[in-house]
């Protein structure tokens, strides 16, 4: 396993008490695997990614649990050590390519800087590697574009550059936070295909965070569904999408509009909204909105237990006593 997250808990202390943004989340990612982390806004998926890479904005902090990268713990490293891990062994791709690139330097310069910092290659070797990366991510006329500035690229191409930058130091794990959300549909498809190809060829573990289930369906092998900071279902993509086990996932799949030849009369809707972090109900966080809830749901919080080919945190799938 490249990444192992165990019982991660992220809190944001406020003067009215601590808000728990990520509550007891565990998962792992194997080399070359793409794990999709899906959830609506406020579910805690971005916070999870930031916690793993150590970029939580204070006063947010990891309150419990551990994060292991290739066997070694990284959640408790001093800032200097974490800085070395970041970029070299973990890379992150953000939603907005414009703010990920420094507008004052050419992309070639930025690529070379990353390569030299983390891989200590000679200038000529690092330039060659940078060019190779640009070609690998599909930038046409790489030799010329090497000397261009970020603003001279369009959105989709910029995102490719960002991906090249992320891969420059040959990280074991790439965290991509909504990498295609700001892009047009046709470009989205290109970037998705690129991520998939690179993960396989470089044997990089990819954590793909997005609210778009369609993107996950195309790109990921497994998917984790988050709700109110908790992991409610995790399993192979096909199974989670076609036979969701947790009532929230069921509702989510029903609510997603799909291109169909007959116009559906209405989409499945889940009444209400995801609770705010300061108002999470006791027991199962989803219980007030759940069409299949019963008494136990409002009292005890369920853990992940096997459900079909996946795991779901739901009392409908009572864990078998050992």
């Amino acid at each position, binding site marked *: 396993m490249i990444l192992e997250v165990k019982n991660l808990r992220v809190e944001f202390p406020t003067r009215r008490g601590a808000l728990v943004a990520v509550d007891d989340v565990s998962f792992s990612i194997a080399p070359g695997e793409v794990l999709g982390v899906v959830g*609506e*806004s406020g579910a805690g998926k971005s916070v999870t990614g930031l916690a793993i890479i150590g970029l939580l904005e204070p006063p947010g902090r990891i309150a419990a649990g551990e994060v292991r990268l290739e066997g070694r713990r990284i959640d408790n490293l001093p800032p200097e050590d974490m800085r070395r891990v970041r970029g070299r062994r973990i890379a992150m791709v953000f939603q907005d390519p414009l703010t990920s690139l420094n507008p004052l330097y050419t992309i070639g310069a930025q690529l070379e800087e990353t390569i030299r910092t983390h891989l200590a290659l000679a200038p000529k070797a690092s330039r060659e590697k940078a060019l190779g990366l640009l070609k690998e991510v599909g930038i046409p006329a790489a030799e010329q574009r090497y000397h261009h500035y970020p603003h001279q690229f*369009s*959105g*989709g*191409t910029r995102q490719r550059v960002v991906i090249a930058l992320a891969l420059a130091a040959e990280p074991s794990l790439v965290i991509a936070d909504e990498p295609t959300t700001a892009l*047009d*549909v*046709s*470009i*989205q*498809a*290109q970037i*998705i295909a690129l991520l998939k190809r690179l993960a396989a060829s470089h044997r990089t573990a990819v954590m793909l965070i997005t*609210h*778009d*289930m*369609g*993107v996950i*369906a*195309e790109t990921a092998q497994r998917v984790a569904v988050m709700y109110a900071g908790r992991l409610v279902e995790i399993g192979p*993509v*096909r199974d989670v*999408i076609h036979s969701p086990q947790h009532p929230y996932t069921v*509702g*989510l799949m*029903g*609510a*997603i*509009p*799909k*291109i*169909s*030849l*007959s*116009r*559906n009369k*209405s*989409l*499945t*809707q*889940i*009444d209400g*909204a*995801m609770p705010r972090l300061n108002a999470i109900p006791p027991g199962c966080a989803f219980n007030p909105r759940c069409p299949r809830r019963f008494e136990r749901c409002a009292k005890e919080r369920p853990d992940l237990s096997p459900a079909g080919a996946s795991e779901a945190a739901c009392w409908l799938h009572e864990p078998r006593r050992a």
Partner: protein
Amino acid sequence: MGLLELSEVSRDFDVSRPWLNRVLEGEPRRTLRAVDGLSLAVQRGETLALVGESGSGKSTVARLIVGLYPPSSGRVEFRGRRMQMIFQDPYASLNPRWRVGSIVAEPLLHLRKEKAARVKERVDQLLVQVGLSPEDGEKFPHEFSGGQRQRISIARALAGEPDLLVCDEPTSALDVSVQAQILNLMAELQRRLGLTYVFISHNLAVVSEVADRVGVMYAGRLVELAPAAELFARPRHPYTRMLLDAVPDLAMSGKPRTPVAGEVPNPLALPAGCAFHPRCPHANERCRAERPAFVNSVACHAIAEDRIRG
């Protein structure tokens, strides 16, 4: 006769650099043609969707329809009484300093000149109609979630008793489950009140759920217009086909995909002839030189010349 008719509508924006810079650097004026020769008619009671990616001009069309700015050429004819608009950003469409009740009441006060007592009654009615409660009228927008704010926007739009509602990406900023609630609400309101919708979106899946007819836009031009079922079953224009191919497939039927090439062109430097030709696998010399006319509900030389099935 359509409720709304656009005839050869174009809209240009002056994006020249400031006068002083132009004079000193000897640059000519620059215009951006956001919408180019668009013609369509919207029938009463239908939902017409306009779909396209960035730079397609669909948002500009929305604003041309409601009259936020006039067309540079062509005509917009509205044969109903009133139009209203629902916007994309639930956080910027409500004035944060106003109470919800005042927000919903604003059209009432300015269009109908109702008496004070009746206004409150009507506002309460509207709030209930969109799934909120009369007490919500006392609160401020920031106390509501994105989905609830869109409901408030809808209530405000309905207050003006419009015939036509122009919806500019009304659910793009919402979570999937909330989107479903809002789309269902809009469908129900349409049934109950006999509304006509012009629905702008970049999301083909959403469009397939709501639209009766779909118009596909590319680089400011209308390239295809068809009933929804037909468009999704038998897309004709190469861009429409490419678009449908590119939508991430939830069903994962594993259909082979034609590799998608290129990006949306820079609106200031559109290719000559058919704007899509650089990315089109069927482009020929004529496509590079001559802009295809919108004929038979599609604007494509290859289809007109029977080179591909149309």
